[in-house]
């Protein structure tokens, strides 16, 4: 399993990987917002956490279609499916998700504080947003894995995956953003939405890979 993780990380970093694509897309979204909204610093600071979350969510969905498709095209997916008795397929999918998250989504979380400066956010709000992104984005990857597994046989399934997955990620977005606001706006709570966010990640960490494994087992042709 560790070998699968390190293989996927290496593939992500080397040529053809999507590690930088997501970050650049994230940067493009966040950098254009102040031009569109105008130079109202207070407004930017207020919408900052929400914009960061939306940008990160969309950037997360960007590379998802390659999660299983690359393995399917070169035949590795067959062997991963056949290895079910040795390594449970759901576990294999979980490892692939974690590797995908560490390779393509973690850079977004690292870039978020820098991009928060573009939005004139306070240090506390930046910290809270980065923390909620760190806890919440794995849930998006786990949901996305289901979409990627269902659409694995479709040659250009990228957009379809985004459309399939986006409605399911809305709860993650809502609790992520409300926890980020809870850290700065005084009457709003931080801990409750944050804990629900963590619970969502853990719940989807089990449900997502299991459902994706089921889809992959029945999707081979």
């Amino acid at each position, binding site marked *: 399993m560790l*070998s699968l993780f390190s293989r996927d990380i290496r593939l992500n970093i080397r040529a053809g990987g999507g590690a930088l694509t997501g970050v650049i897309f994230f940067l493009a979204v966040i950098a254009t917002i102040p031009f569109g909204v105008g130079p109202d610093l207070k407004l930017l600071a207020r919408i900052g956490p929400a914009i960061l979350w939306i940008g990160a969510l969309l950037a997360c969905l960007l590379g998802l279609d390659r999660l299983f498709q690359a393995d399917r*095209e070169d035949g590795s997916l067959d062997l991963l499916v*056949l290895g079910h008795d040795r390594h449970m397929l759901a576990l294999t999918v979980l490892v692939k998700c974690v590797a995908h998250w560490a390779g393509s989504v973690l850079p977004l979380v690292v870039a978020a504080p820098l991009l928060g400066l573009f939005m004139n956010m306070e240090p506390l709000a930046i910290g809270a947003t980065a923390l909620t992104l760190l806890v919440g984005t794995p849930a998006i990857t786990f949901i996305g894995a289901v979409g990627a597994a269902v659409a694995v046989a479709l040659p250009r399934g990228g957009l379809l995956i985004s459309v399939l997955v986006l409605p399911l990620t809305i709860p993650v977005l809502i609790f992520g953003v409300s926890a980020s606001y809870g850290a700065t706006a005084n009457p709003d709570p931080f801990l409750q939405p944050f804990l629900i966010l963590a619970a969502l990640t853990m719940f989807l960490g089990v449900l997502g890979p299991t459902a994706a494994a089921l889809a992959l087992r029945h999707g081979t042709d």
Partner: protein
Amino acid sequence: MRLIAENLGGERGGEPVFSGIGFALEAGQALVVTGPNGSGKSTLLRVVAGLLPKMQGRLLLEGGGDEFPSIASACHYLGHQNAMKTALSVAENLRFWRAFQGEGRLDVEEALETVGLGGIGHLPFGYLSTGQRRRAAIAKLLVSHRPLWLLDEPTAGLDKASEGRFAGLMRGYCAEGGMIVAATHLPLGLEGAELRMGETG
């Protein structure tokens, strides 16, 4: 160990491709599946591996024990694709499959020597020619042990010398008690039962 198929039928996209296929394979035996294009050779192999659901019939692996409870866990499946990543080096690819599928008798370097690719393990897989890629995929069969090889056109793209070397490899594997089911339309240099498809079905 025995691999038994009875009255096996398979389909592709709802269309039956073959039916009524039966064979029994003892340890050390090979089965060469021949037939014209579209007769269902690849489908048969994928059904045996468990990658496609069987339409009818029975598939059974006897004597696998705890280590190989199912055909899927007991087989190496070599399909049309090589299941190697072009961005990684040959040795990295093989090391990954060795770690993932369990260790075999040969290590990565020895396996590459055996298929005549010694000394190029450091090259990215994408730099290799078609025949070299196929040989690297054959080396993948050697780095982890499985009692059954399912080979789909294993010699596609190989030159004469490599074909001969691979035939020797397969004979050696059978002599050690391995089972082979190979789909091909080229002579493999392998003694074993022949299953003709597209005529019986």
